[in-house]
């Protein structure tokens, strides 16, 4: 027994080397007057180098909190209670000094916020903000930085000179998202988190932003984590998929596998509930119940119990763990084999 366990730790160590980010056992709680609410619970997540991972969850499921926890940027009243986040197999983000963390954010990890307009300074032109960013990260050649920013903006399909001379309110929603992407890449970060980056955009700008993300990812071999509630966008973009529900991962695997044969009732429900462009319109069914709220997080048994069509009594009392069904496909459900 002891032999196999050492072999296992060695192989996991080797695997972690290939991982741009390898987070283990992350727990985040939000302190409220009525007690702590566990927003992220026992989450293990790996982002293999050079891949796109999609994280799906409804609003309020804790997906943004998870991303913030990975960067050790959870703000009060939230608190990370346990876990480790290895960056390229070494530095633990949760242990580093705050100055080192600050340098890593931006230089190694780029981040695009959900509402790009809120992450830009309304009082300074975009160009000035790039210079601020450069100074904060001790970039010596600021001219080269601006030049690189211009190159990126052109790649993103924007008029670079105009954008650099603009304030954020002079740009449209799609342009701001693109500027956000530029900011995340301008310091040559190779890990990029995109939080609901296409949610506010309409179809055509969404498609072109996705296309640009895909191109840049290939060209620079970026590691991307894309967070969204829109399973359609994630299914289109990502190679791996993590289904997040009320602070826990309930299913993960290769995107095409998970979509073609979903195992968790929540994933099945989500896929059924997307308006599709082909197939029988009566086959689509809305997901029952409402998005998880604070009561869901405090539940004893399976978090999906209230909305589950195939629940049994045992689901109410104990919580299923994430188990491998086949290959990389993992699912947290007692009734994986149930036919319905």
């Amino acid at each position: 027994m002891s032999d196999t366990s050492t072999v296992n730790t060695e192989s996991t160590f080797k695997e972690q080397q290939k991982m741009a980010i390898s987070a283990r056992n992350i727990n985040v709680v939000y302190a409220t007057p009525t007690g702590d609410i566990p927003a992220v619970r026992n989450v293990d997540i790996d982002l293999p180098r050079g891949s796109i991972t999609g994280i799906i969850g409804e609003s309020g499921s804790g997906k943004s909190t998870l991303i913030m926890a990975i960067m050790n940027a959870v703000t009060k009243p939230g608190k990370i209670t346990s876990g480790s986040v290895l960056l390229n197999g070494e530095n633990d983000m949760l242990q580093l000094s705050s100055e080192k963390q600050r340098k890593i954010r931006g230089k190694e990890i780029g981040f695009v916020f959900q509402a790009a307009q809120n992450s830009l300074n309304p009082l300074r032109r975009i160009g000035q903000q790039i210079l601020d960013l450069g100074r904060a990260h001790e970039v010596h050649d600021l001219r080269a930085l601006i030049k690189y920013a211009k190159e990126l903006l052109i790649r993103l399909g924007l008029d670079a000179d105009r954008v650099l001379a603009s304030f954020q309110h002079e740009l449209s929603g799609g342009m701001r998202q693109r500027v956000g992407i530029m900011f995340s890449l301008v310091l040559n970060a190779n890990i990029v988190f995109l939080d609901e980056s296409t949610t506010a955009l309409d179809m055509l700008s969404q498609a072109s932003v996705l296309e640009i993300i895909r191109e840049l990812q290939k060209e620079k071999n970026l590691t991307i984590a894309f967070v969204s509630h829109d399973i359609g966008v994630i299914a289109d973009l990502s190679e791996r998929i993590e289904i997040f529900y009320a602070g826990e991962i309930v299913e993960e695997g290769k995107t095409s596998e998970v979509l073609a044969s979903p195992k968790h009732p929540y994933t099945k429900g989500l896929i059924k509930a997307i308006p599709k462009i082909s197939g029988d319109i009566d086959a689509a069914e809305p997901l029952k119940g409402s998005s998880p709220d604070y009561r869901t997080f405090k539940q004893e048994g399976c978090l999906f119990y209230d909305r589950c069509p195939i629940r049994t009594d045992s689901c109410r009392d104990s919580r299923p763990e994430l188990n491998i069904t086949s290959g990389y496909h993992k699912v947290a459900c007692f009734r994986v084999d149930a036919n319905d």
Partner: protein
Amino acid sequence: MIEIKNLQKFFQIKAKFSNHKTVHAVRNVNLTISSGGALCLIGESGCGKTTIGRMLCGMERPSSGSIIIDGQDISRLKRGARAKLLQKIQLIHQDPYQALNPTHTIEQMMKATLKKVAKQKKKDVDWIRQRMDELLKLVGLDPETILFKYPHMLSGGQRQRVIIARALTVEPEMLIADEVVSMIDVSLRLGILKLLRYLRERHNISILFITHDIASARYLGNDTELYVVYKGMVIERGRTERVIRRPQHPYTQALLSAMPILKGIEKPGKDRFVITSQFKQSEEETRGCLFADRCPFKQSICDEKQPELIHNDDAYHACFFPKVRQVAAESI
């Protein structure tokens, strides 16, 4: 029945440091919605689809053209009569977070409108109570648990349902649903779409559905007509299913190509193409086709003449070089 004839709208933009500009927001739009029918306007943000909806419910005055509701031209009616007629058309906004008063409970809000209806109909307080429960149940909410709540205590989907219930208090004949699902979680969208379809099929309420998502438009029913709007002009129209399967205009094809593909259960259409150039709002009026600057299939005539909406193969399109391309994703 609602008819729109040659509807036009110009907006004057007063710029401080440059010349005043005129934006041609809606260009010669004609459409008919029969009672209990459904029509869907599709296009990017800024294409004028919302303006059409706003003119239809009287929030905006058309620059020219006429809106005829049950045979009466609303621009010729006196104020009182017009307001009464327009009550039959109710608008549901995109943003369910801003359309409700945050300081009123759902009960106060529903009662406020129902009181007015009750006065008109000479009904008593019991009727209000009964009607309130009836409407909330109709939109799929439980009156017991929802009446005492404030808007911030509800989810986006529930708020949108409350707004629909409020619109139904005046017994409208038509609902204008302006991007009603775009701010709601994807998992809850289908529920709202099914509700609209149910209202149409069971209660004979016609629906004008305004969206940028073609997939949502399909869920309003098989006989829905789809109008694709670009820069205020209808550039393609036909039955929804038919436009999705056999789109003729390059812009429609671009919209269909932009739909995300569900890896593992869908495969891209074989002619799929993605347009990366951005939609420019304020530019010089062109003599040619409005879409020419972004069209990948443009030829020289497209810069010189504007194509008109012509009938072809049981659908309408405005393009000199129409060609059916298979761009929509197909299920595997």
